[in-house]
């Protein structure tokens, strides 16, 4: 009985075992809707232990629903995705309002995504998230830095929901290698 209880206790300590693998840290997400399909793209910071520099990957998925699009992305990845550090959610400016609400509901239900993540709009989320970052590891952090310099937007996740999904989102475009607010 003593041996069994010791083994049980020891097994409990191994709970952290599966957390030793490196993960993809999602810094920003982008959602678009065109041609009857949802397009999701995640900007992932790949944390590689073998070299000190982090690399950034753009993961893309398509589907008839957002959930399907995201699951396509997950299937492509060998490592689990760490979504709780996502700071920016970019939506296409052409996305109809009802689909925008679906994006918000998806992000809300995926509880890991913090309510203080910033929503922005852009002409093409995939294009925006695939540009080379200027001053930080990934373009998502660049966008966050830009937004924090202009705090008059009420575009945080909870503010968007609070406004009934009608919040005025800042539009960010890429021009000459830099990021700008438009309008």
């Amino acid at each position, binding site marked *: 009985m003593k041996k069994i209880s010791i083994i049980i206790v020891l097994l409990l300590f191994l*709970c952290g075992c599966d957390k030793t693998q490196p993960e993809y840290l999602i810094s920003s997400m982008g959602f678009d809707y065109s041609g009857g399909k949802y397009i999701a793209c995640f900007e992932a910071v790949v944390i590689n232990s073998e070299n000190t520099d982090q690399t950034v990957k753009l993961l893309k998925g398509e589907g008839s629903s957002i959930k399907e699009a995201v699951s396509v992305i997950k299937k492509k990845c060998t490592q689990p995705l760490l979504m*709780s550090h996502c700071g920016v959610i970019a939506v296409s400016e052409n996305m109809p309002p009802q689909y925008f609400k679906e994006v918000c509901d998806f992000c809300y239900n995926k509880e890991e995504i913090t*309510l*203080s993540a910033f929503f922005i709009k852009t002409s093409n989320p995939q294009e925006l998230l695939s540009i080379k970052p200027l001053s930080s590891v990934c373009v998502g952090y660049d966008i966050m830095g830009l937004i924090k310099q202009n705090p008059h937007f009420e575009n945080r996740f*909870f503010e968007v*929901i*609070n406004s009934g999904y009608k919040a005025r989102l800042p539009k960010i475009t890429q021009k000459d290698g830099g990021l700008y607010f438009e309008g």
Partner: protein
Amino acid sequence: MKANVSEFYKKHFLGLSALFVLGNTVITAPKTNADQFNFLGFLVAGIISLAVYFLVYLLPFNRITAVMGCLLALFCIGDAGISFIRFIHNNLLPETKPFFIVLPFILVLTFIAFKTNEMLFKFSVVSFLPVVAVILFFFFATLKDFNIKNIFIYELPNLEVFYKQTLPYIKSIALPSALLAFFSKTSGFKKGVSVSGFAIGFVLLGITILNSVLLFGIEFSGVLDYPYSSAGSTVTFGNLFTRMDGFLYFVYLASCIVKCGVGIFAIKKSRNKFVP
């Protein structure tokens, strides 16, 4: 000995009462399906709680009230424990089996059951200040994002709607206030001490509810499972301190432990009526 306890531990009982009121209500308030009358319902429930408190204080301590106190204590312990464990399982440890979450919690409660209530009093006075500090900190940290219109009431409530908003608070505040009155009376404390503590706890609870409502609005707060936690997660200081809701877990644990502890000692007091 009873006189000595009540003489020495006035401040402690004040802190204990405040934490007791916070209990597990702070985790989930405002409740699901909250609407614009929710805060009003909370205030009315507070008045009802005070009335219940004074009523229970007037009752004599005999075997019948001892049994009722016991049952109420069991209800409060169960309610607080289940709420808290559910929060931990859903929010913090979704992959851990509930048994391993419940077990240490029960061990701590068992430890409390074998000790004197002076230990709980000291714990209350020590944890009261950090809890107040954390609640006030989060309130002022989220102040800049408050939308005052979120608590405006645009029409008069009808009774049915009002009742729906008050009832959850009656269950989570008024009923436990009866247990608080029972415990206060059997421990020899004067009404003033525990009522003051109750008032402080009520104000703190109100601050936490307002925190969520002013930040998220009542509709969204009513949809969130754990609104206060979610409100805490929006507090950021620069790039370094981005998710500070970890501090709230201590508040929840301390207030639940105090609530369960009061229930345990109320049962012990009731048992003394039957077993000399």
